[in-house]
């Protein structure tokens, strides 16, 4: 026993190394494999508030661009108003709509922390569980798809950006309506993604638009990008196409969190089916 103690104290550096390294790796592996909400991230109140303070300062530097984008967004919304349409019939019956029920609602949020230059990028926004945000909600911006919510605290939410090792989005070509999977390329260019798993016989064109398919958490038809290269990577039976993203992730300021009101029902049904099988 005494010898053991002497041995341990002689090589204490190594044993201390083992203890701390194992605890660090335990935190790392646990967080990565289960996407479990840990306390060590930017949704925690201390880091979140610090980022919010610094972000307030940074806002002044990009006021022009924000004003421009807000003006454009306003114009787009004005175009959709009823009052901007010319009514060409004189008599209209009032229809109380019982057939359509609203499926998606949108919560606007401000980006307070963002990155594009790492292998796995996350975005922090200033809305949290208090505003009705929960895990696994889709996030879009006025120009296209952004990511999905992975963890929330009372006032902040953490978004796994599209620029992440594990991000997968079901995407559709607008011309042929063919479905594929969108993921981030391993050359880590924040402007490009890879559209894979589209069969070889599909005649895709360079410049064709790619939108969401509606099979994942985002509403159908949200724009993703344009095809820039048809054979970006050898793919055998499948086309692997390069897509230029419409969203400029490095200049992200305002995003919308998509609340799918039937998501729970759908997930419950699919889980039940899996259990039955």
């Amino acid at each position: 026993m005494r010898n053991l103690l002497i041995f341990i104290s002689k090589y204490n550096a190594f044993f201390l190394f083992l203890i701390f390294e194992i605890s660090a790796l335990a935190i790392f592996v646990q967080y990565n494999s289960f996407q479990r909400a840990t306390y060590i991230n930017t949704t925690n109140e201390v880091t979140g508030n610090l980022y919010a303070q610094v972000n307030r300062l940074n806002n002044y530097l990009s006021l022009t661009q924000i004003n421009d984008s807000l003006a454009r967004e306003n114009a787009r919304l004005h175009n959709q108003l009823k009052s901007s349409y010319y009514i060409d019939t004189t008599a209209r019956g009032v229809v109380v709509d019982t057939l359509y029920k609203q499926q998606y609602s949108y919560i606007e949020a401000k980006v307070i922390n963002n990155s594009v230059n790492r292998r796995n990028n996350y975005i922090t926004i200033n809305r949290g569980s208090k505003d009705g945000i929960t895990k696994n909600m889709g996030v879009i911006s006025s120009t296209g798809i952004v990511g999905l919510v992975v963890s929330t605290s009372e006032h902040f939410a953490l978004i796994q950006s599209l620029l992440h090792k594990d991000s997968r989005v079901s995407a559709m070509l607008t011309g042929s309506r063919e479905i594929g999977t969108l993921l981030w390329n391993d050359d880590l260019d924040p402007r490009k993604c890879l559209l894979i798993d589209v069969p070889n016989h599909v005649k895709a064109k360079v410049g064709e638009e790619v939108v969401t398919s509606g099979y994942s958490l985002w509403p159908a038809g949200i724009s993703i990008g344009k095809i820039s290269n048809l054979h970006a990577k050898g793919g055998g039976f499948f086309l692997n196409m390069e897509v230029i993203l419409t969203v400029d992730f490095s200049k992200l300021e305002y995003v919308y969190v998509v609340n799918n009101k039937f998501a729970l029902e759908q997930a419950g049904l699919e889980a039940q089916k899996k259990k039955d099988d």
Partner: protein
Amino acid sequence: MIRVLITNLIRFVALVFLQVFLLKNISLYNLSMPYLYILFILLLPFETPNLLLFLLSFLLGLSIDAFYDTPGLHAASCVLMALVRVLFISVTVQKDGFDNEPEPTLGNMGFTWFFTYAALLTVVHHFFLFNLEVFRLSEIQYTLLRFLLSSVFTLFLILVSSFLFFRRKER
């Protein structure tokens, strides 16, 4: 003693702030990212007990992780770096020389020693960090390229800041 404590405390906070609010936004062509915060571990006094050294490295890593949304990643790299520091110092520095040189700074130890020390520790830290972050062999080319360029960038910043706060050894 108190002076050493306060100096290191300020250095810890200053380096974490510098890293997460300034250097986090800097990257050259998405390939080269500086991680200057490891300077804190480099500059801890020679006589720091091993337990304290590992504990501080772990805490430093965790506080960086909290801002980078990567729990455990930087902590693991920093702890490995602390082990290499212990080994390197036990091989190259005589035990009885500690009275004269309390801290392994550039001014105390000379350029050659400090450069080797900083380079070795930076390379170990970055290699572990980048490979653990990606954790895939299929992207090894990009990972190695990013690791090499980032090490050069970090080392450059470490040397610049060392010359900035350069103080010659008092004899």
